[in-house]
């Protein structure tokens, strides 16, 4: 045991020293960190445990050897340590053989298999094999041993042979992986990884832990340890399988420590209370404090994994330190508990009993923990809703601090609070109304959990990026809600026909609406559709979610809820009204959404009118109920007010849709949002919670009354405040009045949240009280008393925290500000344009002290705004609108961005940089941190050296240089779309925004014969004006070459009267920028009788200017003609990384076009002269001429081809022999193979 402790300490210190520089540790600790932990510590423990089980003196030799080996390793006698540890492993095998001789059991076989790995490791080690090769064997040893040990504990449970075979197969897979790893380390590790995943799955499925985790005390703790450990085993296996233990510090580290820390140490924690007594004859009584090291351990492993996967050294170190802390904490707990175990006897559970308990005996099982009452899970689930509500308040208060504050506010509330509430309650109502059995609670909880996870993903993805996270979240939302709808439909099928079945139709229709809305939201998040399309998507998204998901659910619920709240019976016509309402509303909504998407105002209007008619049909039975009974409770008044707001919104929306084109609907709806969100949705939510919470909290009539009274406290004031606040928010009133509106609304909401939390916390002790009551003692007051008693303490904590927070605010404000002594030295006005997901200029440079005035114009087809880090902001600008911002005299760099959700991540950022101050200002960091796409685009004038030898990013595909033969026919129809938002890899590892035709750089190749007619439909899908100019055609430029605006199209028809390689390019001024940013391509018109050759390639050469297109710095470089690089077919040195292919003896024709804008080319193939050269419509050289050519020279916009035959196999560079340009990227390779 002492040896194991030495190994543990030495291993931990060594591990820490690996992570943190400067921790003094002997070299032996560091070098032998792995063996010390895996064999020295764990091996000794396992051997000791087996020796105890054997109960023969000779058995103790194995742990003795292992411990001695560990000590030897630690003190630096490496060779001695290796031998001793190997012998210890051999001895352990002997122990297993002896155990097997005593009783043949499959666990022992499995353990024997694991133990065999130990001496193998030893031998490999003695043979000097490197650590990574031995790691697989370590894993075999530990995984098999632990799995077998779990099997031993679980074997009381009847195991079918098939299950046993599954484990055996998985174990065999791990073992086989280790064997394979001797020959092929990568494949072996992958194999073992797959095996580990299977083992983890098997254990997770069959282990009793899955059941005992619902128990309490020790068995629960152990089960938590085990299950968490299995999770890490699966993670580790996945990592192994994915990476094959590939070298590279981070992934290797992650793969190793997920297994050895996450899985193995978790197992040790879980088993220690069982094994320690057996080993040391001391008791380790269970205490909840044991969870502390466990949580610390898993947090540590998680942090470490995150650090490894994100390659963040600091996180990894933190994880390592935390892990050693966890191990020390556990050791500390163990020591403290074994020594103080007798001050409070724990219900006489000896180690043996624990084993039995863990083994889950079939008979005489301890009574199952009392099932929580049914209301309880609703209660808990509603806590999520209350939590989201509180978060909504926080978001509203935080305001501008957050990215995309408006969007966040809306979605935290609707997607977080409201959707969760709908999911919970529509299922609950369905069950209650249909009188069917509750669907499996686990599935419901899973849906709820998934929805919340998806919500978090959407919120995070949209507000902070990357958008893929948001899109996945949206997809998940759609999936969950479809699942929810399926469950409801199944419930209806199961149920007997009843009076309330009609309500479920509303819920299902609502779920369908959210599925559509979520889909639209996902499209929005993915930024599919631009400009007007975007706005239409937005409008449809808003309408279908508000009126569909929320509206339909609420309307459906009102049929039953309204009479219940009024405490009257349902009116007779309810069912008919419901049927009719749904038949009108659901199709109406579908038509309306279709109309909005299709940009058909009247269709949208007709749909919405049908929806409104459906809504009116619903009102009939509600009004009927109202006639019978006046509203008399807070809940009924709130619901009533909510219905009124709903109708108001609906009417306003009708007006909006009738008077505006679809693209402007979203902007107009924005004004209505407070009405819907606060007046209708929030009020319905509050009203229903007000009515339902007391019922859900339960606890008998007295408790019900008490809770109801608590929740209704001061409801008239709250109602009035809320409904006064709503119009103040919606109407265009001066800011202070709006603020008052917010105060009223939030105050009312906060009051409810506070009361609800009070009621909820009160309810928890009640559960305990009920138990007391059942056992005959106690009174209902004690729950309240506990609550009361802790009230002063809570108040104290709150006051203390507030005081501290205030002090911290005082301490930090103004600390980071620059001294306010910047004096105005001049002033300047800068025009800023918002368009196409960028802000131009992206960088404004001005001398310190300049008082800048920004005139911001939204030139895009969708809404944007601009917010500066110093707090100035424009209002949301509609397309074409402008605003002016006056800035304080410039002191420091100021960032600016668009606050519309996702736009900052998409690159709508800018920076104002003071010049002439410090070095930091002259080398501004481009705002790459905000672009979120891994852009390395450098946005300043700094000449950047491209690293052309660096590898291309994974996933990069070269532009296919192969030139396809001309299609048949004499008339060619082509559509070319201009786009200016794409990011493309323009040089190894350098991605940059480019302007393109049809999304490729260069644009599509047009090829035909002399006399062919090309009919080009040119569409501008970009965010600014573009045009197109085909050199191959003869036409007056005025019409077809004109600049068209985003969304417009033109037809460009030309007849190719002349043969040649022709350039086409964007014809919009400034053409330098449009061409330099990528808007060019080639038209190839074959000369008559062009001979067929074996291969034809096309290289379009262009210049590369790094930086955000249109930014001052980039424009300057273009004007001066100082490219950062040259590209063949849109990537500098791209064909160095994806060589062009040819074979010896083949005739290869290389077409070339020089796109410029400022430089031509001198195309040359190193090692292979041309025998044919055709330039600008004429042959300069033919194959049967005696001469040859070394270069095809082209001025900007010229084209031609050259032909050659490679003499022998090899690699032939193809370069622009203007060497400066070749070395900066105009360079590629021909790989010539044998024929």
């Amino acid at each position, binding site marked *: 045991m002492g040896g194991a402790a030495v190994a543990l300490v030495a291993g931990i210190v060594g591990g820490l020293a690996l992570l943190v520089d400067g921790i003094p540790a002997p070299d032996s600790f560091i070098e032998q960190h792995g063996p010390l932990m895996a064999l020295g510590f764990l091996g000794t423990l396992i051997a000791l445990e087996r020796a105890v089980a054997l109960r023969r003196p000779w058995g103790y030799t194995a742990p003795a050897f292992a411990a001695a080996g560990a000590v030897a390793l630690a003190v630096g006698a490496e060779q001695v340590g290796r031998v001793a540890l190997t012998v210890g492993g051999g001895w352990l095998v002997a122990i297993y053989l002896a155990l097997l001789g005593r009783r043949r059991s499959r666990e022992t076989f499995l353990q024997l298999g694991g133990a065999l790995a130990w001496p193998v490791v030893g031998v490999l080690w003695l043979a000097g094999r490197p650590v990574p090769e031995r790691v697989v064997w370590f894993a075999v040893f530990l995984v098999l041993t632990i799995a077998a040990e779990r099997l031993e504990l679980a074997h009381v449970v009847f195991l079918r042979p098939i299950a046993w075979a599954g484990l055996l197969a998985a174990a065999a897979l791990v073992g086989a992986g280790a064997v394979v790893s001797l020959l092929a380390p990568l494949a072996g590790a992958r194999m073992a990884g797959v095996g580990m995943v299977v083992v983890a799955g098997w254990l997770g499925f069959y282990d009793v832990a899955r059941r005992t985790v619902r128990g309490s005390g020790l068995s629960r703790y152990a089960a938590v340890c085990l299950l968490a450990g299995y999770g890490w085993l699966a993670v580790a296996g996945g990592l192994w399988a994915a990476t094959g233990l590939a070298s590279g510090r981070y992934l290797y580290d992650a793969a190793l420590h997920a297994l050895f820390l996450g899985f193995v140490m978790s197992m040790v924690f879980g088993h220690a209370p069982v094994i320690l007594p057996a080993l040391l004859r001391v008791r380790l009584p269970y205490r909840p404090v044991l969870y502390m090291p466990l949580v610390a351990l898993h947090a540590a492993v998680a942090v470490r994994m995150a650090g490894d996967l994100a390659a963040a050294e600091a996180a990894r170190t933190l994880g390592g330190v935390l892990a050693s802390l966890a191990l020390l904490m556990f050791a500390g707990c163990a020591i403290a508990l074994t020594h103080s175990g007798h001050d409070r006897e724990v219900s006489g559970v000896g180690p043996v009993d624990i084993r039995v308990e863990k083994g889950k005996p079939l008979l005489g099982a301890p009574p199952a923990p009392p099932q929580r009452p049914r209301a309880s899970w609703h209660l808990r689930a509603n806590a999520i809703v209350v939590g989201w509500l509180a978060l909504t308040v926080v978001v509203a208060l935080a305001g501008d601090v957050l990215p995309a504050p408006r969007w966040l506010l809306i979605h935290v509330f609707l997607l977080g609070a409201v959707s969760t509430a709908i999911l919970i309650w529509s299922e609950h109502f369905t069950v209650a109304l249909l009188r069917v059995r509750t669907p499996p609670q686990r599935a419901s909880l899973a849906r709820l959990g998934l929805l919340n996870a998806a919500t978090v993903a959407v919120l995070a993805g949209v507000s902070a990026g990357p958008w893929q996270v948001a899109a996945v979240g949206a997809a998940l939302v759609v999936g969950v809600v479809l699942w929810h709808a399926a469950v409801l439909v199944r419930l209806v099928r199961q149920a007997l026909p009843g009076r309330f079945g009609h309500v479920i139709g509303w819920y299902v229709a609502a779920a369908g609406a959210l599925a559509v809305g979520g889909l639209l939201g996902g499209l929005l998040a993915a930024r599919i559709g631009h400009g007007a399309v975007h706005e239409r998507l937005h409008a449809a998204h808003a309408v279908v979610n508000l009126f569909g998901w929320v509206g339909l659910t609420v309307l459906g619920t009102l049929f039953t809820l309204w009479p219940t709240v009024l405490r009257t019976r349902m009116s007779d016509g309810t069912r008919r009204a419901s049927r009719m309402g749904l038949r009108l509303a659901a199709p109406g909504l579908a038509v309306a959404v279709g109309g909005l998407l299709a940009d058909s105002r009247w269709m949208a209007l007709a749909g919405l009118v049908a929806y409104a008619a459906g809504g009116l049909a619903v009102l009939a039975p509600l009004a009927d109920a109202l006639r019978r009974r006046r509203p008399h409770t807070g809940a009924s008044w709130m619901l009533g007010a909510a219905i009124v707001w709903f109708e108001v919104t609906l009417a306003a929306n009708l007006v909006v849709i009738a008077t505006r084109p679809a693209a402007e609907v979203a902007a107009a709806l924005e004004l209505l949002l407070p009405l819907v969100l606060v007046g209708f949705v929030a009020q319905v939510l509050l009203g229903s919670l007000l009515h339902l919470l007391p019922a859900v909290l339960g606890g008998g009539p007295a408790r019900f009354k008490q809770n109801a009274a608590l929740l209704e406290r001061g409801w008239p004031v709250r109602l009035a405040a809320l409904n006064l606040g709503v119009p103040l928010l919606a109407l265009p009133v001066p800011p202070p009045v709006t603020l008052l509106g917010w105060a009223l609304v939030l105050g009312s909401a906060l009051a409810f949240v506070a009361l609800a939390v009070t009621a909820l916390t009160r309810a928890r002790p009640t559960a305990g009280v009920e138990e007391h009551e059942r056992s005959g003692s106690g009174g209902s007051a004690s729950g309240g008393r506990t609550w009361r008693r802790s009230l002063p*303490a809570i108040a104290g*904590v709150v006051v*203390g925290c507030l*005081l*501290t927070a205030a002090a911290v605010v005082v301490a930090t*404000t*103004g600390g980071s500000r620059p001294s306010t002594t910047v004096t105005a030295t001049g002033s300047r006005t800068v025009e800023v344009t918002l368009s196409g997901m960028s802000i131009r200029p992206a960088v404004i440079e001005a001398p310190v002290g300049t008082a800048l005035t920004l005139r911001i114009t939204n030139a895009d087809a969708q809404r944007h705004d601009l917010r500066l880090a110093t707090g100035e902001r424009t209002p949301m600008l509609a397309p074409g609108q402008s605003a002016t911002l006056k800035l304080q005299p410039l002191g420091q760099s100021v960032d600016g961005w668009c606050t519309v959700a996702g736009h900052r991540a998409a690159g709508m950022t800018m920076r104002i940089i003071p010049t002439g101050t410090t070095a930091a200002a002259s080398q501004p960091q481009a705002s790459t941190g905000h672009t979120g796409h891994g852009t390395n685009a450098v946005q300043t004038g700094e000449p950047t050296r491209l690293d052309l030898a660096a590898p291309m990013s994974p996933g990069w595909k070269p532009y296919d240089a192969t030139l396809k033969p001309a299609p048949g026919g004499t008339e060619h129809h082509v559509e070319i779309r201009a786009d200016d938002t794409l990011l493309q890899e323009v040089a190894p590892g350098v991605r940059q925004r480019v302007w393109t035709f049809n999304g490729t750089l260069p644009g599509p190749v047009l090829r035909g014969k002399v006399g062919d007619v090309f009919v080009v439909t040119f569409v501008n899908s970009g965010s600014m004006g573009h045009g197109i100019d085909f050199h191959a055609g003869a036409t007056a430029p005025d019409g077809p070459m004109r600049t068209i605006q985003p969304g417009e199209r033109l037809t460009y028809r030309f007849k190719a009267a002349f043969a040649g390689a022709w350039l086409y390019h964007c014809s919009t001024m400034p053409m330098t920028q449009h061409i330099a940013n990528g808007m060019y391509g080639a038209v190839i018109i074959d000369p008559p009788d062009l001979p067929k050759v074996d291969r034809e390639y096309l290289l379009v050469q262009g210049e590369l200017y790094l930086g955000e297109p249109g930014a001052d710095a980039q424009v300057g470089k273009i004007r001066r003609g100082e490219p950062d690089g040259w590209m063949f077919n849109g990537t500098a040195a791209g064909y160095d990384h994806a060589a062009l292919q040819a074979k010896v003896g083949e005739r290869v024709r290389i077409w070339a076009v020089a796109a410029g804008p400022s430089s031509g080319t001198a195309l040359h193939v190193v090692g292979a002269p041309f025998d044919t050269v055709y330039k600008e419509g004429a042959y300069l050289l033919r194959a049967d001429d005696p001469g040859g050519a070394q270069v095809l020279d082209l001025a900007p916009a010229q084209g031609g081809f050259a032909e050659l035959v490679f003499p022998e196999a090899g690699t032939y560079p193809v370069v622009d022999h203007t060497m400066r340009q070749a070395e900066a990227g105009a360079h590629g390779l021909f790989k010539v193979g044998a024929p």
Partner: protein
Amino acid sequence: MTWWSVVRFLHVLGAALWVGGQLTVSLVVLPLARRLLDEQRRGQVLSAVGRRFGLLTVAVFLPVQLATGVAIAWHKGVTWASLAEPGYGRILAAKLVLFCAVMAAAGAHGWATGRGRPRLARAMAVTSLVGSLGVVLLATALPAS
């Protein structure tokens, strides 16, 4: 190692003892007293503990903290004007204000205990505890130079 180190040591030690003492009483003594002692004895023990702690605070802790604190501030060249400046001065000022608030809370605790208002006393005790943690937080935030 100069005499100033000793002064700083005393200042830190005083803070550690005071905050640590509060934590010990709240997290160790109080729960155990609740569990192990009956109503009457608990009252006796707790009031004795409180009185002793208050005595120590007033007699030892406050004088030591004030003396060493003022000395350190003088050594650092802190002036009234510099307290308003962002950075060291502002943080120090906030810390002093918070410290005064904590002392006020502690005083209120003693007063409320004497007047037999246990709920207020408890709230004030916790306020003082949390606030003194805040003081420590601000102390660690002071720039080292």
